[in-house]
């Protein structure tokens, strides 16, 4: 069995280096520093990291190595998690004086845990790869029965009619994926942006000005907060609200500017299950 202490692995994004003011080195090392609490994610300029990555990919392209889909996918996942993590960190925390602060802190830890989990499975995948390589160097003895023993074999009993045999063939020859029952509809988001939008509009019928914090007070999960945020963006697009933030990282105040009684519909474009992000993979 492989050494399990070897948590620090080879770089997963070979050759990709990040050049920041406070850090200069392989992307993987940056991740490790963050995941070991040696570096604060809020100190990382993600835009610079992204720029670096894009130029890294361009360079590969120019060198004729083509578009590295594996690398790009991996980068997107890690960068998205870092962004989530950073967003959670940047939200005001300070003293924990109410429930919503606590929820934000938890959300931050959860994102952190998710990053760790993501990386753990990458380590395991590397072990799988090595194991497969080793196993492939061993060949099984697969031999026919020695001639004098074949005579001892009992007569074969197929035990089925030609019709049953044909049915078996049909099943064995059928393309497998058609047997998979789609259950995508069962996993539709439990939170609907459109519905949360309706709820916000109801709130504005009572008060014309509210902070984002107030709007999210009754939210019982991070997902609801996200849905309400998206609904607000939709309403902004409709031109019926405006945002105001007096100090950086301060409370966001939302003002209703729409006409009384105007019928507003929050679109449900965010509620469609994501099915377009496919991993480019056929092996």
């Amino acid at each position, binding site marked *: *069995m*492989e050494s*399990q*202490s070897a*948590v620090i692995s080879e770089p997963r994004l070979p050759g990709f280096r990040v050049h920041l003011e406070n850090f200069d080195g392989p992307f993987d090392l940056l991740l490790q520093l963050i995941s070991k609490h040696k570096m604060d994610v809020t100190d990382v300029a993600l835009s610079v990291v992204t720029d670096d990555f894009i130029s890294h990919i361009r360079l590969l392209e120019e060198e004729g190595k083509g578009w590295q889909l*594996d690398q790009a*996918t*991996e980068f*997107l996942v890690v960068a*998205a*998690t870092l962004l989530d993590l950073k967003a959670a960190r940047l939200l005001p925390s300070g003293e924990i004086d109410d429930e919503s602060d606590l929820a934000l802190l938890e959300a931050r830890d*959860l994102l952190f*845990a*998710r990053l*760790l*989990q*993501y990386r*753990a*499975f*990458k*380590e*395991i*995948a*590397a*072990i*799988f*790869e090595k*194991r*497969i390589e*080793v*196993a*492939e*160097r*061993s*060949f*099984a*003895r*697969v*031999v026919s*029965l*020695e001639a004098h*023993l074949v005579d001892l074999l009992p007569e074969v009993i197929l035990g089925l009619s030609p019709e049953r045999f044909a049915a078996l063939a049909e099943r064995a020859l059928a393309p*497998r*994926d058609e047997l*998979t*029952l789609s*259950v995508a509809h*069962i*996993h539709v988001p*439990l939170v609907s942006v459109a519905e949360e939008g309706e709820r916000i509009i109801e709130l504005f019928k009572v008060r014309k000005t509210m902070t984002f914090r107030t709007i999210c007070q009754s939210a019982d*999960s991070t*997902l609801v907060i996200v849905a309400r945020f998206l609904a607000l963006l939709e309403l902004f697009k409709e031109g019926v609200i405006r945002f105001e933030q007096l100090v950086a990282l301060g409370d966001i105040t939302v003002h209703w500017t729409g006409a009384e009684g105007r019928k507003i519909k929050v679109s449900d474009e965010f509620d469609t299950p*994501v*099915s377009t*992000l*496919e*991993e480019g*993979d*056929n*092996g």
Partner: protein
Amino acid sequence: MDRDEAIGALEAILMVIDEPISATILAQILEVPLGELEEVLRSLARSYLEDSRGFELKEIAGGWRFYSSPAYAQYVEKFVISGQPGKLTQAALETLAVIAYRQPVSRARVSAIRGVNVEAVMKTLGVRGLVEESGIEYETGAVLYSTTPYFLERLGLNSLNELPEIAPFLPDIHALDEVISTLTD
């Protein structure tokens, strides 16, 4: 039956089988208690290794059989037209890792952990015989997936218990998984 006789009989039977054979069947044929027989198999396997033989006796996916020693792979490869399918991609390996440690697991859950849609990759793993449908999740009706015996074979493992511990890579991953699922499902 004395030990030498048992060893000889085991070697003779193992020489004619075309698929792995379980210790239970061998114990029945030799009329030897299972525990005793397993001990003989293990010490036999060890002796081949100690003698640096060109072959190994291994228990993989629940059955014993002879394999060529990896040390001589370069020679054997000239005879065996490698029926081994191509290499798995990084994405496939990682998805396989998630399924191996979370089985039985729904596609949605794997997707949540991997952070991307895994539909295509899981189809590939299924076609390659590495994972299979193994049930339905009671609460959601989602199809659950598990690894196959062929998966164990490809990794050269006897059972899932031989998978490396994940704990050193991530403390208390099961607890985390539960909370994370509330975030992502």
